[in-house]
């Protein structure tokens, strides 16, 4: 597999570490239900078949955390962006519709 790192260009899978769902947001620890929300944040995953926004770490490269939009069935990667930039880049939403 090849991943397009926004900083380094397309690089081999060997350079990356997989992390998981990119849409999880760390709950507010002050929240009344912080306990339950943290349980969901740390342990509960949907494991979708198809479109998935997920985090990859370019550990053997520039150390950038990357959001990749990947089809879990075909491993096609529609788009990537830096995690610090948050949301999906232009065009990715259309791909999501398509899948």
């Amino acid at each position, binding site marked *: *597999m*090849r*991943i397009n790192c926004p900083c380094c260009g397309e690089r*081999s*899978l060997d350079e990356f*570490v997989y*992390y998981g769902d990119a849409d999880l947001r*760390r*709950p507010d*620890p*002050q929240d009344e239900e*912080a*306990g339950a929300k*943290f*349980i969901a*944040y*740390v*342990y509960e995953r949907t494991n979708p078949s198809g479109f998935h926004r997920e*985090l990859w*770490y370019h*550990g053997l490269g520039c*150390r*950038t*955390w990357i959001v990749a939009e990947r089809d879990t069935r*075909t*491993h*096609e*990667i529609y788009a990537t962006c*830096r*995690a*610090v930039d*948050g949301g999906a880049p232009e065009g990715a939403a259309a791909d999501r519709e398509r899948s």
Partner: protein
Amino acid sequence: MSERDASKEASQSFRVPGMGSIDTTRTITFTFDGRIYEGHPGDTLASALLANGVRLVGRSFKYHRPRGILSAGSEEPNALVELRTGNRREPNTKATTVELYDGLEASSQNRWPSLAFDVLSINQLAGSVLSAGFYYKTFMWPAAFWEKLYEPVIRRAAGLGRAASEADPDSYDKVTAHCDVLVIGGGPAGLAAALSAASAGARVIIADENPELGGRCLAEKRTIDEMPSAVWAKHAQEKLRSTNEVRVLTRTTVFGVYDGRTYGALERVSDHLPVPPQHQPRQRLWRIIAKRVVLASGATERPMVFGENDRPGVMLAGAVRTYINRFGVVPGRHAAVFANNDDAITTIADIQRAGAEVVAYVDSRKELSPAVLAVLSEAGVDAILGGHVESTTGTRHITGATVRTADGEIRNLPCDLIAMSGGWNPNLQLATHLNARPHWNETIAAFVPSALPPGMAVAGAANGLLTLAEALASGAQLGIEAAHEAGRPAVEARSYSTTPEASSIAPLWRVPETKGKAFVDFQHDVTTDDVVLAHREGFAAVEHLKRYTTLGMGTDQGKTSNVNALAIMAALTESTIPAVGTTTARPPYTPVAIGALGGAHRGRDFKPERLPPSYKWAREQGAVFTQAGLWLRPQYFPRPGERDWQETVFREVDTTRNAVGICDVSTLGKIDVQGRDAIKFLESIYINNWGSLAVGRARYGVMLREDGMVLDDGTTARLGEHHFLMTTTTGNAAKVLQHLEFCRQCLWPDLDVQLAPVTDQWAQFSMAGPKSRDLLRKIVDSEFDISDAAFPYMAAGEVAICGGLKARLFRLSFSGERAYEIAVPSRYGDALIRRLMTATEEFDGTAYGTEAMGVMRIEKGHLGAAEMNGTTTAYDLGLGRMMSDRKDFIGRTLGSRSGLMDPDRPRLVGLRPINPKHKISAGAHLLPQKAHRTAANDEGHVTSAAFSPILGHTIALGLLKRGPERVGEIVGVCDPVRGRDILAKVVSPEFFDPSGEKLRG
């Protein structure tokens, strides 16, 4: 012809002068089963054996039936030999792909005591017992017999060759390559595609498993652009080799298609030589990233399924043509041809041209086209249309064919060769590696690729275009398209002229009435009866059929057998072939040696070694090294006269505790943290408070995972207002950096903080012991005040040493003694350790290794990887009080879950044996003193243990249920692995200087 004749034949008596394209001017010798034969450069082992009249080359897997050579390529199921000897011995090598070299040694396998007389061939008589599913049914009961009796017997009887018993002496290489267009296969379609793509300026890689490009151009007597096809192929190859940006990889099999347009290929660099040339690997593994791929992998001929079709002398018609046209070897003198398609007709002329007789042409079709009938009549061959070969005669090779004509008449035809063709299967495996299902093509009666992996197009026979004209045209066109899609200019595809050819087929999946075993899968000895049995017993689905009969599971992966088998199953289930479907092809296309996949990563080079700055010096001292992660660290420094490692370690500990010891701590992870929000960042990742840390001071910190378990610990020093230097444990350096980068980039991207790993940039040495400050004074430049008042415990700052070298100084201690750590840029590490060791002589100091460090840290109750094992919380490890309640930090919420605060959880304690002579080892279990030694009574385990020379007995750390509440209690320490069961007292984990007086000085 009698069976003995073949072995008496003079040297190479089946070689036909003037035929073939190999160099017959040079003669080389080889041995097979100890006998010396001659052949020529360019021969395969199979062609050379056939040239010498050797037909019998192996015994079959299950029935030990005599087997010969079926094919002329990598699909070969029968002619598997052991190649080479000693540590280069290679089992299950296909004689059809082994290139002959002078002095080659090969031997047959799966026979005892000899190939001609094999005791286990009696299995044939027991054939009805050894049918499909035999192992499953027979060796069920009693279970105990399986290991002791059945398996050893089966293993001896079965199995093919023997692997070498010594280490492989050769090396293996790995390469990554990028290209615009990868052409897989160098036959007519592949050559046309590569020429096209190259003409458009594309960067091309063309790979073919043979030593020369050309494919069936070399095996057939055909014409391309008014040239013999072999000559055309030679020109094409030369043209490609001389084109810039074209890489020709011969002896290279593309074996797998992977995600991201990545392709795996194996180049057999030196397999055709006795031993690899100097500095050359045996094989090279290629990872090719290609924008576009033209798959031109050709097709594999199907055998006909009739009685005794496995006897040596029964050969694929295409292979017969290959041996004649490419190698100048005629595999028999009296041949029968048995086919169901037009392509096989050309075999007749080739055999006749080689001076052999075609005794009959048997075609299962009753009616043939006028063009084909004209060819038959011109050849003057006895044509038996609508007939079948039902069986063969002979024992170690065939002596005749039993033929049933269309009117039911039985004719016995004496012959020593049957050239058979059941049609051609496109080699579409690579097109299905990413999970596409092939499509059934009625016209050619075979599966063809349908949905394709991204970027792939299929040309020629691999796409079911079986004639030469179609192969050239599709290759030329797809090569142009691939280059254009890869960003090269569009150019016109050129066309090639060829002579017309007939290619119709009427499938015959099995001969209706046969005598004797009719083999479908030759390698795994699967017969039509086995398929029928599988159907009868309910294993009709293809995936069940495969596993029940082991069909297609040999090293050939059923290249010659799969389609025949599922067509037979389709008939049995009264279904269609596309409805029955086909099994999934997975990489690799042909076997890949594990050595090639491992490449250089074996033995000492399995993982990289990281060497600390004092490594060279430590080696000179005769240090014994240990692995810590990837690092090689000195374990201890033996001195002359010391009896064993323990004596050395005691001396190192004793010297450190009473004078001074020096240890290279450069391997600890170091992360530079800078930014206006650095404090805020540290507050969020450490459980304790950092706001009050002054510039020039260091603090111990503990970080958790978000689930509340301890991730790592270490000290962080504040070097400036917005500048911190964090240390991590040696083994966790990369993991912690990843975690911190995650926090910085994904959780709090708004924080102004930057991270840089600086582990390799600094050489850092610890000086521990009461004399450490005196030693330090010797090297720190005099203008720096390092008195306790100016530089107290946990101080950090910049100094100059040895006359102006800038260094960082920290007053930190892992050993529990007064201790300092001094850091200089890595390049000064070697010089500094030498300077320090010279300076330490006056204090009778020592260097110490990880073993002494381990003893001293256990004496102090400091945590190591055995305690921070991913299942322990801060509370478990006695660090609960460090957890700040004034801020949020990673792991706080889940670390405070009631389950994790349960006092019943195993928690950190110290352990001391009641009898000082008793030893405690890590891994021992802790139980109530008098409880039964059962898992149900388990209350924890010993995590670390060492003999303390200061205390004179073993000390240990452990995790014990309600541990801290039980200080003073006596527990059982049970170590069934080492056969020990002793009593120990639960104590505080701080064995040495609990008040910290020595630390602060």
